[in-house]
Every structure is written in C-alpha cells, then in structure tokens.
C-alpha cells in the first residue's frame, strides 16, 4: 500500500494562563512539506496570539500572528479548515516550535486543551489545487 497524499498532524497543549505556552514536536518524517495550519474553535479566545511558528529556523507565519485568522468554526468543511497561503516549508522529520498566548485567559477561565493541526504532504502543488484553495 502506498503512502497517503497528505496527513494531518496534531499538536496539543494544556492552556493554563494568559502567559506564553510553547509546544514542540517532531514532524512526521514520511512527509516532505508542511503546507497548512489550522485551529478548531473549541476553547481558545478570538484574541489569542500565535507568537511564533518555527521549523529549522524558518518562521512559517509572521511573529505575533492573530490566531483568529486560522480559527474556524464547526461550520467549515474539514478539508477547508487549513490556512495554506504561505510558502510551503521543506521538512524531514524536523522539530516544529509553536508559541501561543490566549490573552483573554483570566482567573475564571478553566484550563483547556489547545489543538493545532498541521497539514503535511509530499505534493504541495497538487494538494493546494485539489482541495484547499
């Protein structure tokens, strides 16, 4: 059986305060390009900030990117939840580092699990044309 065209890799973190949370994970080494990123609208506030997304020293998104741009609600089709309009990054099992801040987290907010979804593929051009643009 051949490899799938793409894979969705998930990064998890428990958000416990309004300070910066750093999440690190190694990307699936069966895939050569990181092409998309998404957050589902479950717990984090609209004012959350993605301070940094970095692979091999390359910033995938601009520093202090407003998370609202990549948060989607349940109404969005699963294969259209990803933001893909950045330069695909060539990967080889590299570590990805994400820094995240929920600026509206307060003393009355319950801790929650943040999930960041990464779209990996071996065919970056095909995946954009076929499903995500």
């Amino acid at each position, binding site marked *: 059986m051949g490899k799938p065209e793409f894979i969705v890799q998930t990064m998890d973190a428990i958000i416990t305060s309004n300070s910066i949370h750093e999440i690190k994970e190694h990307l699936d080494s069966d895939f050569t390009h990181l092409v998309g990123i998404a957050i589902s*609208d479950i717990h984090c506030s609209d004012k959350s900030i993605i301070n940094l997304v970095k692979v091999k020293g390359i910033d995938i998104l601009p520093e*202090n990117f407003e998370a609202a*741009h990549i948060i*989607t*609600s349940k*109404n969005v089709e699963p294969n259209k939840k990803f933001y893909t309009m950045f*330069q695909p990054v060539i990967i080889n099992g590299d570590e990805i580092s994400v820094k995240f801040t929920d600026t509206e987290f307060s003393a009355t907010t319950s801790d929650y699990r943040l999930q960041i979804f990464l779209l990996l593929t071996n065919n970056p051009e095909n995946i954009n044309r076929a499903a995500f643009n």
Partner: protein
Amino acid sequence: MQHLIKIPVKQDGKYHQNFEWNSEQYKKLIAVFCSPDVQLALVFNDGREVFIRNFDFQKTKSVPPNSRVMFINKELENEVITGVLSIQNLESEDKAVYLILEK
C-alpha cells in the same frame, strides 16, 4: 511560491493609522487581509491608484481561512504600497495588514 508578510500598525490613540511598505523584493501582490474588525484602504502608484477604499475585515470563523482574504493579483513594479487602517475602538490592541506576495 507565496510569501506572507505582516505590516504591523501601532495603535496609538487615533481612529485612522497610515502605513507604507516597499514592495521591491516582490513581483506580484496576490491578496491582502487585516486584523479583525478594521477597515482598510490600500493605494498603489504613489497614491494614484486606489485599490480598496475602506473595506471591512470582520471576524469570520465560519468561512475557510483561505477565503477570508481579498484577492488582488496585481503586478508590482518596485513600488511603495500605502494605506490606512480605520478602527472603531480606540482601546483595541495593535493591528496589522497582511500581504500575500510572489517573488
């Protein structure tokens, strides 16, 4: 290949904030988007070509992220892009304009 560029716009107590950005490294502006809940005016060619005049960018979580941008597809010739961000709440945080470009 698409490059995503952020132009930070400092919130310093005014309803309208000007910005400018030199496009010299890039051949084409594909699309633009902004911080939620602002209006954007975008001007090219030394202020002579108005592309967007006070267009609303709102919170739109029910729309796919790739569809929240405004497509422009304009060839660039080493020009300065200028614009104005308009906000409604002076107590809001700093804003930004994002350009999706091709080299």
